[in-house]
């Protein structure tokens, strides 16, 4: 059990998302870096899909209300437990009264705190993720606030601590011409863009604009134009979809995306790389790399293998 001590907003309870309700207008939500959340859970011996706390604004602080272990993953925030530096991606033990602090990330954008047995909030429509737009799920459907008490699913926690795992940024690095690379599949309106516009998209450097959050991110770069104006009706969209509004600057839908939209879809960031986008800091540059459906599935498989191997090795320690 912890008490949240940070006045800054944007931290929320998230699991792997609320799936199967897009048709009712309920977006998925869920952790922006699901590999980090799952790895944090595995470190604690939790099922990988349990809920944790996603932290997006720093510094952040919480106090432990009882003894227990915790796992830190995601962005490297030079976290400190009672002033003592903790390595990134680490499983540690806290005593009652201990204070855990996160600082602005050196690597990545979002930090995760996992607790024994997962964060204990009531599931809504099968998920503990905070649905911010609908104001339900997570902790009262909102960001954490000062003095919120967050309960762990397992109150009496025993087990080893003080070890970590290699972050996927290091185990599965991905670069293209010296910049972090995000894999993208062409989507329905891809062919409505001119050959020059398509080439520009793949060849350019893009910057994550400050108009980016859990709903979506805007990319800054050359203008991507349609061959000719295109009017399409609103249709279903999912996290990862890259829309090109009339201004020509791409918008990528993320975990809190609304379930429908009407801009032409240039492509979609593959599910396997959404965590990379979730850890891209505002202002940083990246490139998009074109893949096909089979490569997208293979990438998802590689993420799974990374998690399986981690679980397999952790079984020797926990």
């Amino acid at each position, binding site marked *: 059990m912890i008490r949240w001590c940070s006045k800054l907003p944007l931290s929320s309870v998230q699991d792997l998302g609320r799936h199967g309700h897009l048709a009712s207008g309920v977006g998925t939500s869920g952790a922006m870096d699901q590999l980090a959340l799952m790895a944090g859970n595995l470190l604690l011996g939790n099922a990988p899909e349990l809920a944790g706390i996603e932290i997006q604004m720093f510094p952040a602080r919480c106090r432990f209300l009882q003894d227990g272990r915790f796992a830190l993953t995601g962005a*490297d925030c030079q976290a400190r437990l009672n002033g*003592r*530096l903790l*390595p*990134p*991606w*680490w499983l540690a033990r806290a005593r009652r009264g201990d204070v855990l602090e996160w600082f602005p990330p050196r*690597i990545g954008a979002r930090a995760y705190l996992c607790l024994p047995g997962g964060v204990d909030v009531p599931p809504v429509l099968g998920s503990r993720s905070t649905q911010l737009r609908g104001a339900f799920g997570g902790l009262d459907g909102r960001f954490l606030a000062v003095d919120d008490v967050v309960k762990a699913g397992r109150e009496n926690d025993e087990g080893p601590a*003080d*070890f*970590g*795992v*290699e*972050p996927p*940024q*290091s*185990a599965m690095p991905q670069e293209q011409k010296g910049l972090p690379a995000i894999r993208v599949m062409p989507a329905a309106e891809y062919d409505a863009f001119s050959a020059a516009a398509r080439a520009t998209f793949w060849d350019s450097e893009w910057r994550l604009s400050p108009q980016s959050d859990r709903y979506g991110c805007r990319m800054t770069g050359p203008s991507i134009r349609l061959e000719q104006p295109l009017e399409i009706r609103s249709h279903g969209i999912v996290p990862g979809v890259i829309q090109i509004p009339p201004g020509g600057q791409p918008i990528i839908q993320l975990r809190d995306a609304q379930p429908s939209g009407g801009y032409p879809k240039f492509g979609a960031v593959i599910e396997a790389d959404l965590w990379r986008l979730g850890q891209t800091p505002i202002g940083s540059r990246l490139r998009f790399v074109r893949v096909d459906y089979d490569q997208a599935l293979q990438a998802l498989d590689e993420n799974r293998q*990374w998690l399986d*191997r*981690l679980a397999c*090795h*952790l*079984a*020797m*320690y926990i």
Partner: protein
Amino acid sequence: MKIDIQRIARLMSWLADTHIHELEWGDDRTSLRLRRDPGQSLRQAPEPDRSAGPPARAADPEAQAIERIHVTASAVGRFLDRAPLQSQALVTPGSRVEPGDLVGLLQAGPILLPLRAEVAGIVAGHAVQAGEAVEYRQVIMSLEAVAAFAEGEEP
């Protein structure tokens, strides 16, 4: 065959009751070597030679005794001098460390194990390079322990 830690621990306790000094077992995927402690403590440091006059540092006003303490590998793995993706090493020769400070990491597959200083001291030097594979109990670095003389013992 799957080897788990409990099984290894059981093998170790059996081994401790025998006169077998070393046991090695393996198949095409796994190898396991258990060696009995030859009676010496794991991190026993060489005794500082106090008879040959005070150690060099005793001349400084803080009056300190120097003892070399080895930091050894707690498992087979790869020695890392920093967490992955970090630009700065956790410690370098000359770094001052306190008991419990993280001085390195040992990577075993995807797992990172801590190497911590057991005493307050100054990092004297590394016995292995970052990225090198190390054996169980291999010396990774040495610390010059810094301990103030007890009162009345000042040189």
